């Protein structure tokens, strides 16, 4: 009787946990599972596929474990045959060398193709021409430069819907990892180097982005918003920024790169080569010395 009650209690507790979790999760945003762009969407589908493939092995393991532990426990009178010297079966061992190997071979093929397919440097096929954005990770803020539009922004990347973005990333600070989970996976931003990332959004919305790599005391604030808007409102936004925003020249940039956490603000671009100069400043010792690095 007491045992039944304990099991009942455990069962009820588990049901309660599942219900509470479900209610909670239905009320919050889960970026990785709610993709809003083609790249994140393919990554999400790949996640489901690989998880499914893994379950082919994992579920039998759990069933086997439960059955064996329950059935062969010492206290079970119906335990069945005890074979203390049974230690080898070519057939059985062959089975679990071969089946996981086949499974992993299949998953490997999927992986190989997906890795090319979702290579962050691979352009997104689209009717629109890609919009180039240069991203500089600073202590502790993200600077987005739109070289073709002559504007820039801090901690906010606004862009038109469905247009592929071609990001070029570098860092003028410690190593950072650019992560915009609803639109794409991560890529590192490193000083003296340039990495690239393509992404695009299918829906109008504001998405959470942040750095995933520790970069010093202000690391937690190293976050930004990505805002996808209609073509028309993007054009209007660009026009406004060019007209009203302060200028980003080298002096302003040097103020920006000091270590502090920042809010969102916008600039019109007065000095177009900032991104390349930042990379160059790390390339040769002579440059580094001049820049005081």
């Amino acid at each position: 009787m007491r045992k039944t009650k304990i099991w009942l209690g455990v069962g009820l507790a588990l049901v309660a946990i599942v219900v509470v979790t479900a209610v909670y999760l239905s009320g919050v945003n889960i970026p990785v599972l709610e993709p809003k762009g083609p790249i994140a969407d393919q990554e999400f589908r790949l996640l489901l596929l690989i998880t499914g493939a893994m379950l082919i092995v994992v579920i039998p393991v759990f069933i086997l474990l439960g059955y064996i532990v329950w059935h062969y426990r010492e206290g079970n009178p119906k335990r069945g045959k005890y074979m203390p010297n049974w230690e080898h079966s070519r057939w059985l061992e062959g089975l679990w060398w071969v089946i996981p190997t086949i499974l992993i071979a299949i998953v490997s093929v999927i992986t190989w193709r997906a890795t090319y397919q979702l290579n962050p440097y691979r352009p997104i096929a689209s009717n629109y021409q890609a919009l180039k954005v240069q991203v500089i990770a600073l202590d502790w803020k993200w600077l987005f430069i739109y070289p073709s539009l002559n504007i820039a922004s801090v901690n906010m990347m606004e862009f038109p819907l469905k247009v592929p973005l071609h990001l070029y990333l570098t860092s003028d600070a410690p190593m950072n990892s650019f992560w915009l989970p609803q639109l794409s996976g991560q890529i590192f931003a490193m000083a003296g180097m340039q990495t690239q990332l393509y992404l695009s959004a299918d829906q109008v919305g504001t998405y959470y982005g942040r750095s995933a790599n520790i970069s010093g005391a202000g690391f937690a604030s190293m976050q930004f918003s990505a805002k996808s808007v209609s073509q028309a409102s993007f054009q209007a936004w660009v026009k406004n920024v060019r007209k009203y925003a302060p200028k980003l020249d080298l002096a302003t940039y040097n103020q920006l790169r000091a270590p502090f956490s920042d809010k969102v603000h916008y600039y019109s671009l007065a000095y177009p080569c900032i991104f390349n100069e930042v990379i160059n400043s790390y390339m040769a010792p002579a440059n580094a010395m001049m820049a005081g690095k």
Partner: protein
Amino acid sequence: MNHSFIYFGGLLGKLSLKQLPHDPLTIIGAVMLIMVPITAAIVLTLTKRWKWLYREWLTTQDHKKIGMMYIIVAILMGLRGLADVVMIRTQQAVASGHAHGILSASHFQQIVSAHGTIMIFFVAMGLMFGLINLIVPLQIGSRDVAFPFLNATGFWLFFAGMALVNVSLLIGDFSATGWLAYPPLSELKYSPTVGVDYWIWSLEIAGIGSLLAGINFIVTILKNRVRGMKLMLMPLFSWSVLGSMFLVAFAFPILTVTLTLLALDRSFGMHFFTAGGGGNMMMYVNLIWAWGHPEVYILVLPAFGVYSEIVATFSRKRLFGYSSMVYAIWAIVILSFIVWLHHFFTMGAAPDVNAFFGIMTMIIAVPTGVKLFNWLFTMYRGKLNLKTPMLWFIAFVVVFTIGGMAGVLMAVPPLDFQFHNSLFLVAHFHMMIVSGVLFGYFAAITYWFPKFFNFKLNERFGRYAFWSWLIGFLLAFVPLYILGFMGATRRLDHYSASLGWQPLFIVAGIGVVFIIAGVLFQFAQLAVSIWQRNTNRSGSDPWGGRTLEWSLPSPPPIYNFARLPLVSTRDAFYAAKRAKVVSTQPYEAIEIPRNTPLGLIIASGAFLFGFAFVWHIWWLVIVGLVISIVAIIYRSLDPHPTITISASEVERIERSYKTEVAA
């Protein structure tokens, strides 16, 4: 370029009174830390045991005592690692929105870095080397390890590294750059304090200790096995240790070199990994993971070995698929060296490179899966004795499989782009390391405890501890998977309230409360077991053991085997029990290593060297180095490194066990 960071002025280098702790939490920590040696000193003085401490422990060359010291250090450091957990979890549970919690960002980051460093290097490694020291020589029928002095020195270097980490709590600060200190953040430009230097030199010193221990056990296992024990007759624990120690021997030199290069950058203005000046931070990331990935297998393989012993013993059956198990170990050993790049798929390598390392990573799932199935079929048609070691094993299978599934997901590069450095990753590796390493070593301690103390650990408290740990562990880490999906990354000291993360962080915090209850039950278990020891005498073979260590009296005599056993099969002791062989051979004189404090002295020199290097006290660097080198030379000239126990003395010791049993 500014070279002023090389201090030549002042006898104390960068050291000053300003470096003492001044915020309340650190002061509490520092006081608690100082209390440990002070309490120990008072107890030793009151009980007049200083001489005993020196003779029996500080100078010992006995692998069993060294093993116990490793485990004691690991347990103490585990408590410190747990205190770090409490602060991390409290901070993250409260620091939502405008609330900034109990810790400053840099303090929080130091604690996160210390937690990782301590748990891996001084808890997991300590427990591992402790168990290896205790068990391997007994299991292979050896009277000692191959190089007892090297072994003792290795332990004291481990101790010196541990001491250096703790000194950082008292003077100066610790690294705030994560447990692997990626440059350029860990370079002088971004981390100007001594924190990273403490991190470098404690790991450098402890790492050399690990390397010495690794070499010692490779040679011990290959050369010291009792006659008749061919490699393919060796118990699985010893096999997995051999695999693990090969990894140590190949991986730790990489760590040593990498840390040295970073130290040269920081202390002498070089540019191996700096941003600019020709440095390349990507090289550091590659090197550190070329050590770091094998490191996780270094920890997990011996635990796999523990499970192999426990499952067979508690199923009262032979281990299923012995040869498969051995091949699986070596497949893992080899594969673990060609997967390191999966720690940074996000660095921007070409897809062929990423895909290769991803696939190699997945292939590791095959031998691991084989081991899992072999354990399951060891239980199949057995007679399962479901004592706590088996409970830990069953929990391991469940948790490790879930964690492993997450691991395969992250081995797919495009998926890793979404999981890299997120709390999903944190949940994954804790599931692997806690279930695969910690649970395994808990099971091992319960299993082998009676061998060294002649009484069993209390089963009821063991079960309470187990259930508290398991429930707490799941509560603490399942929410982290979900938080990873929600975009939460590791090492965040605060976050926006609008993200909706706080409830999950609070649940994770509740999990830690359960884990603490589990730890308290473990200490209660130890206390109760000691209290009731006289009614719970276990004798030499309490579990129906199958391997040679169970043939020895408990605790084993200093020379382990008075008569070397005869081995012609696997499960040698099981076979001997069935054959009922009683040896009547006369006892022989046995040579054992003579106690010496030189290992301790070498490590003290290393400690001074490390401490002085952290603070740039150059004269002390030289003093430390000279102490170590002179001690090594002195030792090499020692004409009498061993003493001999005469045959009659051996006979007397062996008889004393028999009268004890009779009484």
